[in-house]
């Protein structure tokens, strides 16, 4: 209980410091939602040239994009800041975190909770609602459950990717932008029907890393469309399991990383 109160105090301090510069906060709020707006806009612009991308029309593709953006926005809001681990490792700030009697990961996340990214989540969910309205979904109890679970699973999955790629800093401090290839790259990958990608690239990102289950398979299950790539219909409902698997891997990687962390010593 005392622990929880400490976390709430940390988050509260962050919120107060963000809100005290109101103009800056508003600009950053708008700027951050802009990035997500442009992701959705790109899909609309591409559909100006054609009516089908990878065999899917605009409402269907928009459904995949919106599941990804809402889930990604949520993950980025909650754990995206773990990206800064490499700065903390280099500067030695991580040592201060480790000597406190609280978990290292929650502290790192709450030390810089990005309130400015809140509006993104709202926008993502709005687009999801619009996309669901544009598609003719045959609602069953299973699909209602899936439409609530899919963005949450996407958030857990993307959050795990954030933690795994940030953990790289425990072994390679200068890893720089390499994590973005999987976090932002993964988001872009999952924003489009995975039928557009070449077989080798798709095999790696969609099935080996699991990004097919972020938005593509759940969207197919919601639409009741058979998978042109041959996975059975229940694959869409497997996305929470894939997310749990990713979270388990992320926990293990984080634990190993932090156990073998040696301070920079300065």
């Amino acid at each position: 209980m005392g622990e929880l109160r400490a976390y709430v105090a940390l988050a509260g301090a962050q919120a107060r410091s963000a809100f005290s510069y109101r103009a800056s906060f508003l600009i950053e709020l708008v700027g951050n939602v802009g990035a997500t707006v442009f992701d959705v806009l790109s899909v609309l612009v591409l559909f100006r040239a054609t009516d089908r991308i990878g065999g899917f029309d605009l409402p269907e593709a928009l459904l995949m994009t919106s599941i990804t953006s809402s889930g990604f926005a949520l993950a980025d809001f909650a754990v995206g800041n773990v990206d800064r681990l490499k700065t903390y490792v280099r500067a030695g700030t991580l040592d201060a975190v480790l000597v406190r009697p609280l978990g290292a990961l929650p502290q790192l996340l709450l030390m810089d909770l990005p309130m400015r990214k809140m509006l993104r989540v709202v926008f993502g969910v709005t687009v999801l609602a619009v996309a669901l309205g544009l598609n003719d979904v045959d609602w069953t109890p299973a699909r209602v459950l899936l439409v609530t679970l899919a963005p949450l699973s996407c958030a857990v999955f993307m959050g795990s990717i954030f933690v795994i790629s940030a953990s790289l800093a425990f072994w390679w401090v200068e890893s720089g932008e390499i994590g973005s290839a999987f976090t932002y790259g993964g988001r872009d990958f999952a924003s489009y029907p995975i039928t557009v990608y070449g077989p080798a690239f798709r095999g790696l990102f969609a099935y080996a890393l699991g990004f097919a289950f972020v938005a593509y398979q759940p969207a197919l299950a919601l639409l009741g469309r058979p998978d042109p790539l041959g996975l059975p219909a229940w694959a869409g409902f497997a996305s929470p399991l894939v997310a749990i698997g990713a979270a388990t891997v992320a926990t293990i990687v984080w634990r190993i990383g932090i156990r073998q962390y040696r301070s920079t010593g300065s």
Partner: protein
Amino acid sequence: MAGKDASVLTISPDSPKRSSITTFGALVGSGFRRYTTYRQATIAGTFTNIVFGYLRCYVLLAVAASTLGGRPAGYDREQLATYVWLGQGLLSVIMLWAWSELAERIRTGDVAADLLRPVSPLTAYLAADLGRAGHAMLTRFIPPVVVGALCFPLHVPARWTTVPLFLLSVLLAVVVSFGCRYLVNATAYWLHDARGPILLWVLGAGVLGGLYFPLRLLPDWLAATLWLATPLPSILQTPLDVAAERDGPAMQAGLVGLQACWAVVLLTLAWIVQRRAERRLVVQGG
């Protein structure tokens, strides 16, 4: 050039024009050398550029595959692949991302040291940026283009003039991008914190520069307006269109001419802003 060794610059007895050219060259060289020390970051960044190259290329080729005639916005498959892979290579050359070095120095007051130097900050930062771009051209541009050429059929220029025109266009794009970044950073003279303007720049430059999608996919009137009214298409879209030979030779040269105009306008604007800022600057910190 007596009394000048490799590490210490002295005011040379040569003519002022010649010595300022030597100084500019030395600053370009130091900008280049600075980036040669970030070897691991270069490798990591190149890897990321390549992954995004695959993502963007597959999506655009899928658009081409389902477009009637297979030429969305007038690009054929090879031109689209060239557009994507050269774009991924150019990303760090033109530096579309956040650059806040100057804004940081204004905020902390370190800019006072820049103002004491015999070279104006605008010239010094431009020289350093050209050195940085030269380094990026050698290390960051080539790998994505090679990977792209191995995995996808790229467009081979049909006119020999395209190659020198492309290189000129890249140089102008670096200057235009530098002018924009300098102006965005200079807002810190008035605002103290340029994070907001920098954020807007990163967003605007990505979309209106042609990174997210080729601007030719937009309605013609909108694309033309963006090109003429904003410098952003001159940063990425123009060099890529020149390389992909999207237009005939006259239009190609015209676009590069437009870039040159924007480069002059932005540098002049940056020079005026810098002079006004120096008159009102109160150095922070102490």
